[in-house]
């Protein structure tokens, strides 16, 4: 499967501006809500997760996987994509600053495994990833994702 299947254009924001990590997660949450994957409450849950556990969601250089646990705020499994025009610090020792925030909403512990496998594939491909981060429009991101196996 392609990541494009789980990432509608309504969930993609490019050249985004965020003043800090909270604003960056708010954009990712707003995109999940815009695509119908979550209610607005999920955004607060994602921010609360970082407040509680620290910026562990910054799992690779320049990349944050914003998420919380399955909850009534999750309407269906989905991803959002926020490429930041200016990188933002999350307070992560080794992986700051963040240029790409992917929001993840999951209904349970299992139904999004294929989506995560597709995401892992993208994240480990540096050439594709830098092309994706540089993309100027949602349509462009979607097109790049669509041609990645």
């Amino acid at each position, binding site marked *: 499967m392609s990541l494009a299947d789980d990432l509608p254009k309504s969930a993609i924001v490019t050249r985004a501006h965020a003043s800090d990590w909270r604003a960056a997660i708010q954009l990712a949450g707003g995109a999940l809500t815009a695509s119908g994957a979550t209610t607005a409450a999920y955004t607060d849950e994602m921010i609360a997760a970082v407040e509680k556990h620290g910026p562990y*969601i910054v799992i690779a250089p320049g990349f944050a996987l914003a998420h919380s646990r399955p909850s009534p705020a999750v309407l269906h499994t989905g991803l959002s994509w926020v490429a930041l025009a200016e990188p933002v610090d999350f307070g992560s020792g080794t992986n700051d600053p963040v240029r790409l925030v992917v929001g993840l909403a999951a209904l349970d512990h299992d139904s999004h495994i294929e989506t995560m496998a597709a995401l892992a594939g993208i994240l480990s491909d540096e050439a594709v990833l830098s092309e994706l981060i540089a993309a100027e429009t949602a349509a462009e991101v979607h097109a790049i994702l669509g041609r990645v196996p």
Partner: protein
Amino acid sequence: MKIVAVCGMGIGTSVLLKMNTEKALRQMGADADADVEAADIGTARGAARTANLVLTSAELVDEIGAVPAQVIVIDNFTDVAEITEKLRPVIEN
């Protein structure tokens, strides 16, 4: 060998780490000897009691606290080469 990948929620980053750990084990030809599971920080202490190895991020090490298992910090969860390098001494031991 039982390996537990730990994150805050057990659905996102730990799942990515579990996948890439399994990939690293396959590349080392050690996948038959190891079982990898993903856990959230709430259940990690319990899961770590029966595990040989815990993989997690620097931010969560203190929250996991003292467990009998060896704890290894992974900086880049998407970098199979880093995971392989950190796992190899344990696997080959």
